[in-house]
């Protein structure tokens, strides 16, 4: 320690500056190396997926694995989308996901608005009750829900997958409520002085400012619904109603898995999720600034 001090003090200011710059460069290089290592590590499964999706079936189990497929079998993609009704499953998934997003955004923001911006008797107790429902794992309510939807005649329709989305959900409501609570109350007061109703405050004041949290909800609901397996498995029976998540499992058999087709179909299924992520990432970054709420 003492020797370090002596060394530092004996240097000229410029050499100290250079050393710090050098250290910073070394630090940056190390960080970048670590990040690149992480990137490569994370990329390996995706690379394996891409590689397998282009291999003939006989090359899948080769050891050591062949990373570059030879010959490249683009037909795998054609086979993957023709051996199952891929486009039908895609359409079903788009419909269910789209309606779920609309339902969730509408209901969650409304409920969160009531919990955060309106004063009413029992508000906090009800909020705690709602939060407490998060403790119930979905498997516990699976059979009662199934019985309910069966009596409503909704089995083998999209309704059991879509309608519950219009009734909020504790986690996203919690997120939205926390976000709404950060918005200054003066905005509501100003609106009310100008004659705005409660719904007007929600629609004209809060929602325009809520873009970041709405985007978060959209992304989470999209991701969750697009990849959801259990609920479609339970409620959908006719293969014509299947979603992509169910369709992909058609390649995974009891005793045999068509890895090349599964990987090709998985990549195609993954594309919209990736696209959404890269598109929405920008909004995420903007959203963090929470524009419009600075006091």
């Amino acid at each position, binding site marked *: 320690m003492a020797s370090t001090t002596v060394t530092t003090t004996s240097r000229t200011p410029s050499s100290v500056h250079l050393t710090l710059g050098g250290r910073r460069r070394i630090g940056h290089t190390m960080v970048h190396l670590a990040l690149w290592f992480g990137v490569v590590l994370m990329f390996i499964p995706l690379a394996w997926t891409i590689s397998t999706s282009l291999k003939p*079936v*006989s090359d*899948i*189990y*080769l*050891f050591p*694995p062949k990373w570059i497929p030879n010959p490249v079998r683009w037909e795998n993609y054609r086979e993957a989308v023709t*051996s*199952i009704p891929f486009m039908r499953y895609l359409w079903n998934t788009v419909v269910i996901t789209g309606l779920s997003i609309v339902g969730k955004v509408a209901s969650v923001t409304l409920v969160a608005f*009531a919990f955060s911006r*309106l*004063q*009413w008797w029992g508000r906090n107790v009800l909020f705690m009750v709602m939060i407490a429902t998060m403790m119930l794992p979905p498997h516990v309510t*699976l*059979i009662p829900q*199934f*019985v309910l939807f*069966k*009596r*409503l*005649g*909704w*089995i083998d329709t999209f309704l059991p997958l879509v309608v519950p989305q219009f009734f909020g959900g504790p986690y996203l409501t919690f997120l939205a409520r926390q976000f709404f609570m950060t918005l200054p109350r003066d905005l509501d*007061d100003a609106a*009310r002085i100008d004659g705005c*109703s*409660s719904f007007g405050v929600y629609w004209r004041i809060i929602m325009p400012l809520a873009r970041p949290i709405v985007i978060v909800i959209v992304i989470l609901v999209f991701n969750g619904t697009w990849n959801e*397996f*259990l609920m479609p*498995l*339970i409620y959908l*029976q*006719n*293969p014509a109603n*299947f979603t992509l998540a*169910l*369709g*992909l*499992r*058609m*390649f*995974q*058999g*009891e*005793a*045999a*898995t*068509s890895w090349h087709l599964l990987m090709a179909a998985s990549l195609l299924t993954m594309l919209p999720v990736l696209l959404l992520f890269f598109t929405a990432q920008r909004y995420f970054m903007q959203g963090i600034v929470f524009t419009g709420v600075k006091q």
Partner: protein
Amino acid sequence: MSKHLHLSRRAFLKAAAAAVGVGALAACQPAAQPAPAPKPAAAETKATAAPAAAAATAAPKAAPSSSEAVKLNFVCDTINTGHVQVRDKWCKQFNELHPNVTVEHQPVPQDYNTKIQTLFAAGSPPDTYRYLQEVVPIITVVAKNMHLRLDDWMKKDNYDLNDFRKDAVNLYVWEGGTYALPRDYGDQNLFLNLDLFSKAGVEPPPVDWTETGFTFQKFLEMAQKLTVKKGDKTEQWGFLVNRGWRPWASWVYNNGGTVVKRDAKGVATEMALTEPVAVEALQFLQDLMYKHVVAPRPDIESEMGGFELFASGRVGMMINNPSAVNQYRTIQAFKWDIATLPLGKASKRGTGGGGSGWAAGATTKSPQWAWEFLKYISTAQGEQDEVAVGATTPSRVSVVTSPQFLDPNKPPAHSKGFAQAQEYVVRDPVNVRWPEVFNRIVTPNMDQLWSGAKTAAEVTKTIKAEADPLLAKG
């Protein structure tokens, strides 16, 4: 501000009341529709089960009406895309034969047991489905009145069961009643990488199940010769321990042990894994991984995948069942074959196995057509259809010995072993509590054996202590 808030609260309450009213109306509306019967699930099961049971005795006297429009569902796990196509074809052909009957095939891509259990628990069992007796024991099926009883229907049609293996039929018979028709009857076999055997200069093990020279010790020596190490790293393993229930139970049977003791009716009464021969067999399996190091530990196997390790040419032998044969046929990098299992202290070999059946739900609205459909898919042609797309071990003797199943142009060369092994199948335990015992006690404790955390003696002692009280209740 408070004025505004006061007003908005009222408005909010009004809106909430309106919403509740609309919700209540919406909830009531479908109940008024005739289609779904608003009965409690249990009552519904009882109410519909009674006519079904009555139909099972009374209806067979009358021939199925050919004019009445009937819709049935047929729920199956997918196995592979070929099987889905075969089942679609069955439904289509059945509809062509009986234009008034529509059978809707509902393939379940995965988590088949969850789906089936949900359907039964919710009081809407499938009309016809693939019944897995190892998941829901036949004793439970009878106790809970889950299936249509087939005896009267068989009697009426003079249905011939003789071509089915008798033990396959017996899987679905309980207290004199028959509750499903056999679909398949599987067993366990040793799958061999012949290229690794010839490279190591080792003679492959025998195929014949009556042979007595292929002992545990000989098997160990073989596995040791097939294991290749480079420094501390094992590059090639002699054997891969299949941690599935039937594969590990096969070692117990082959050492003269059994998993459970059974009463005269065949009901499992207590665990028998603490018997010295059973402990010895299980310890042998653990030693293959940790003492002799001729088999990959579970972490390595899980990372690579069991079949994938074999298919990549890094494992000399593994145990699997014939329904996996289609997957093995994708291997082109080396030659492979099958053999019998090693024989320990038992006088006769045994293999874990059994099969699945075709069954009809007790509450099906049309028992006669459900029965007709079960008959239709259980023909020799039906089994041949499934053989053609792989992943089945037929339950009909005529099919399991047919050239289509024993196709000499396709590996394995000794596929007769699949058929011979059927003679050595030891039935899974039958007890209402067995699924619970298996999932909650046996599997987690066996994981301790596979991870090397506990010895076979410790593991089996714990299993017995925890499982016996439950089995006694069953």
